[in-house]
């Protein structure tokens, strides 16, 4: 299955990606970054809107551009690009709010069979990590690209 998604741009090291969300509120520049964490080969996935007026990036803004599914599919595509380049990397992800984390969990659950074709996926529940199972109330996720 191929979900509709936006064209991604990246710098040469494939750690920061940019795309243009186009919806009911107009055009919004989105940035996705894989940030090295305090553990080797573990990267935090973060994304948000670039405010062209201030030059600041906001990962809490509710854009409401009526394209959330397409935006998430594009972020997933960035995960493919990043982990394709950095095959040892684990990508850690959690929402900036409880609501967003639940949104991500719903997205993972919906496409878990497809996700598991290409990624090992773990979930964190009450500070314990385990292999991801549908229906659990995970607060964070971590994925690792399976060998190609």
């Amino acid at each position: 299955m191929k979900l509709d998604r936006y064209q991604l741009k990246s710098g040469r090291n494939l750690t920061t990606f940019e795309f243009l969300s186009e919806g009911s509120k107009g055009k919004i520049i989105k940035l996705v970054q894989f940030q090295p964490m305090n553990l080797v080969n573990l990267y935090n996935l973060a994304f948000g809107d670039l405010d062209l007026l201030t030059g600041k990036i906001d990962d809490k803004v509710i854009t409401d551009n009526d394209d959330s599914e397409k935006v998430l599919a594009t972020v997933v595509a960035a995960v493919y690009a990043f982990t394709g380049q950095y095959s040892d990397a684990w990508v850690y992800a959690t929402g900036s709010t409880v609501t967003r984390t639940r949104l991500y969990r719903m997205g993972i659950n919906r496409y878990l069979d497809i996700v598991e074709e290409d990624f090992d996926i773990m979930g964190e529940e009450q500070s314990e990590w385990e292999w991801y199972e549908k229906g659990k109330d995970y607060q964070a996720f971590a994925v690792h690209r399976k060998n190609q």
Partner: protein
Amino acid sequence: MKTMLEINQKKVPAVRIDPSLDKYNNVVLFPEKLTKANEQLNKSGFPKLPKKKHNC
């Protein structure tokens, strides 16, 4: 290191390389999110970076 061509032929969409985005190299764009993630990591730790899920 894989080339962009190799990456683009797989499930990954064509990613346009834009050198202007190199300005973000080594810049933490979401510092609060990173701090929060590292704090959570300190609490929960992380498994010994398991390489594979075993189907058994």
